[in-house]
């Protein structure tokens, strides 16, 4: 993962933005992954199928990109198991409590110029930076 993949990053971002636009245009929904996931197993009957379809699409798109050879260097291994589990719990609980994650607040919410999403994005980015600084200083992990 040497160097900055400028073109891939920008064009991948554009695809994500197109995905959000298509979902609003056709189905009238916001492409926030934590909300889509939370409603896919909870949520109301009749409101689940599109969520499951979206998540299946996420997997299909990922597979297609992998087959095209785009994800080959992206897997990390040997990261501490305890950190992965603690992080998952925090992300699962926090994204529901805060009504969104990187996609819902960071992409869709900011595009809607929502003050809530701007505040959320600022807070989660700062919290992430503090934790990463901690990982670097205390655990010498990065």
């Amino acid at each position, binding site marked *: 993962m040497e160097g900055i993949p400028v073109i*891939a990053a920008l064009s991948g971002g554009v695809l994500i933005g197109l995905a959000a636009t298509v979902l609003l245009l056709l189905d*009238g929904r916001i492409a926030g992954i934590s909300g889509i996931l939370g409603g896919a197993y909870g949520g109301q009957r009749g409101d689940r199928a599109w969520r499951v379809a979206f998540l299946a699409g996420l997997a299909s798109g990922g597979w297609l990109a992998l087959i095209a050879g785009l994800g080959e260097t992206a897997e990390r291994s040997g990261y501490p198991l305890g*950190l992965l589990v603690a992080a998952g719990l925090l992300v699962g609980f926090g994204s529901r409590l805060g009504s969104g994650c990187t996609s819902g607040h960071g992409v869709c919410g900011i595009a809607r110029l929502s003050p809530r999403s701007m505040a959320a994005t600022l807070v989660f980015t700062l919290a992430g930076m503090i934790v990463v600084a901690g990982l670097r200083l205390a655990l010498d992990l990065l």
Partner: protein
Amino acid sequence: MAKLAAAWFAGGLFGFGLVLSQMIDPRRVQGFLDLAAWDPTLLLVIAGATGTTLVGYRIVQRRDRPVFEDRFHLPTATKLDGRLLLGSALFGAGWGMAGYCPGPALTAAAIGFIEPLVFLLALLAGSLLFDLYRRSAP
């Protein structure tokens, strides 16, 4: 049926975009959050995604309704409350701790990566804990 196909297609674009932009690599994400060895990749992805969505949403919202539904389902909350800020802080802490958030974790787990699968199982547990918490304290 068209509604489901549309959701699947949108998800597909999203997942392809996440892999193409290397956002399924947690080292890229942690690199963005690491001021000591900063990696701007995530910022470029967000710029591309948010810029496109900003324009796309403006065009879409000229319509009275979406193509396959009778109305737009948009968030209605406007207040900056403690729930939003605390939830976002917890989310951000976990995001930095693993280098994964829900979209990349789902996509990477689906293509067979191990670490995001572990992360995703814990994420589902955290989400279920939230359901329990909400039921006990409305």
